[in-house]
């Protein structure tokens, strides 16, 4: 996938100007998800669940080589074919071979962020394979030719009217068709695809090393169909997605569901142990592709590796006041919102993603929501420090910050300067940083009396 993260500030501003409906749709959807998550956390001892999940994931990551080899062994014992891919090119080669060997003409896909990273759809299309995204939201954006804008709800930036217009053009449904009627049209198209596809492609929420179990979570049933009906199933799994023991799923499945959508468990969970046995329905072949694509580099990074605990639940996006303004598209890569701001620089390098760690108010809501306690604000600061060190941040920023620190540390200097600002306000139209502020708001007006003095008067 082409990375456009460098354009973040420009794209965010453009979207806010040109498509104000996106802000409304995204804010509505994320506030809804966030309220559900809070309610679901209150029902359990969330602190204890999160801490336990963090510890399991840290154990897994600090023994990752052991668990990857164990997972491979268990998968192979169950008749699953295991492949390893360092980068998208290797993943493509593996998939190309499978497509050629089975003469695949049609594929059904279950939503997976890793396959977005790898560019699986463009590859399949170039091979002449017809690809159907089968998650309803993902199907909508596939019709529109857009990337997902949210890790869990890929189409939350679309309003009902957008979808009504899309289906009117594509399928001739009335412009005021109900969501039920639109879903029925999609169901019909996709049901036909499920029944005729040769290949089912998925990601995985978890891969259990102890049993070689692929775990997939969803609400629609499309993942169970994609992994049950076609004769070949290929699952792309990031190497950090492992869990040590089967029973760990009893913690991670409900915790992920609560964090993502506020459910006690997602409607459907598929626990897959291998291809169909003799006389059984299901795929004849199951392939697991273990993908690195930047993950080992992140594991190596002492200041950034904790981000690999991520379960891709999207809770931090829903909690983020910055994400809510634009949705995920301006972030310019697969992962958006707070997790994208610390994961994308780790996967792709800071040079190509420099603005993302700044796309945050550092309010800490993302950390409070995270089911595995990833210290996102701390990681944002680590990436910002590096941006300054590597000269990616503008040079005036460093100077301005140093001057600011000096003033804030010296009470006499602070008083002198604030007095001066009250007497001679800054030329607000001339300074670029202030201009950006005043464009959408009234001019900055200093209080006639210093806070210090107001506080004294209040006490008297």
């Amino acid at each position, binding site marked *: 996938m082409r990375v456009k993260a460098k354009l973040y500030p420009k794209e965010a501003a453009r979207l806010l100007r040109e498509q104000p409906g996106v802000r409304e749709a995204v804010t509505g959807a994320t506030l809804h998800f966030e309220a559900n998550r809070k309610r679901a956390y209150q029902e359990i001892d969330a602190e204890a669940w999160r801490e*336990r999940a963090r*510890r399991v994931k840290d*154990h897994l*990551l600090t023994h990752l080589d052991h668990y990857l080899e164990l997972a491979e062994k268990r998968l192979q014992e169950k008749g699953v074919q295991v492949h390893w891919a360092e980068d998208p090119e290797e993943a493509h080669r593996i998939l190309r071979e499978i497509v050629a060997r089975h003469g695949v003409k049609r594929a059904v896909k279950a939503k997976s962020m890793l396959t977005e990273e790898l560019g699986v759809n463009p590859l399949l299309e170039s091979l002449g394979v017809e690809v159907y995204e089968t998650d309803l939201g993902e199907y909508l954006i596939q019709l529109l030719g857009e990337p997902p804008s949210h890790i869990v709800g890929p189409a939350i930036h679309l309003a*009902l009217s957008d979808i009504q217009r899309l289906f009117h053009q594509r399928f001739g449904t009335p412009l005021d068709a109900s969501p039920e009627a639109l879903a029925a049209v999609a169901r019909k198209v996709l049901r036909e695809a499920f029944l005729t596809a040769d290949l089912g492609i998925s990601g995985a929420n978890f891969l259990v090393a102890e049993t070689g179990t692929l775990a997939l979570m969803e609400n629609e049933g499309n993942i169970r169909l994609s992994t049950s009906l076609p004769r070949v199933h290929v699952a792309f799994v990031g190497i950090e997605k492992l869990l040590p023991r089967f029973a760990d799923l009893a913690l991670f499945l409900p915790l992920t569901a609560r964090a993502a959508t506020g459910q006690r468990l997602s409607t*459907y969970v598929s626990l897959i142990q291998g291809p169909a046995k003799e006389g059984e329905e299901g795929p004849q072949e199951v392939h697991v592709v273990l993908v690195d694509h930047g993950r080992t580099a992140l594991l190596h990074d002492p200041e950034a590796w904790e981000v690999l605990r991520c379960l891709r639940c999207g809770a931090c996006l829903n909690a983020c006041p910055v994400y809510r303004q634009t949705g995920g598209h301006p972030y310019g890569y697969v992962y958006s919102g707070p997790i994208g701001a610390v994961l994308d620089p780790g996967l792709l390098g800071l040079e190509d993603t420099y603005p993302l760690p700044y796309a945050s108010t550092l309010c800490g809501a993302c950390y409070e929501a995270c089911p595995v306690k990833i210290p996102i604000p701390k990681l944002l600061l680590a990436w910002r420090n590096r941006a300054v060190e590597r000269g990616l941040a503008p040079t005036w920023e460093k100077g301005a910050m140093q001057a600011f620190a000096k003033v804030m540390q010296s009470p006499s200097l602070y008083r002198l300067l604030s007095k001066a600002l009250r007497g001679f306000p800054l030329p607000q139209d001339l300074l670029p940083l202030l201009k950006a502020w005043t464009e959408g708001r009234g001019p900055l007006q200093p209080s006639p009396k210093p806070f210090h003095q107001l506080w004294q008067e209040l006490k008297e």
Partner: protein
Amino acid sequence: MDAKSRILSRIRHALKDRPKALLPEHPHPAFSQDTMELFLKRLAENGAEGHLVDKEGARKLLADLAQGLPGAAYGKGVPDALRLLPELPPEEAPLGVSRALFAVAETGTVALSSEDGRRTQLLPPVHLVLVEEKRVYPSLLEAFLDLKSLPSAIGLHSGPSKSADIGQVMVKGVHGPGRLVVAVLQGTW
């Protein structure tokens, strides 16, 4: 070197100086609420229907569901006594009947084995699941710790198929069954 050795060697290098984190024990499973009461409550909250029935009650429930239908698709484990309608392929059947591996009260879930048949569990618009009373576990952890062997696939179903992807409006029966009915069977069968 192949991709596998390169990835593993990079991981070992990355972990060389990192302190190893300990794996916490599973919490001791303890659920005080009445399991059956909780299971039926959670099923209802998930938008599914739950019934606690004896053999005769199960037949009656099935007869009610089957009214006016030409046939049904059956899972392999469904007893003959409960195959009231002519058998249809799952692609055409208006009703699917399955026998669950187990159920979980905590989450209002039925667990279905691929050995019972996957199409019947997914393709018909209405899905009736039979589960023995003694196979209803209080929690997911207890159910998982008790599993002796794993079939090629397990499906955990907790309510009807649903999506809010179209304008944040909840729609049922998007891909899978829009109606899930669970019959908890008392006694042995």
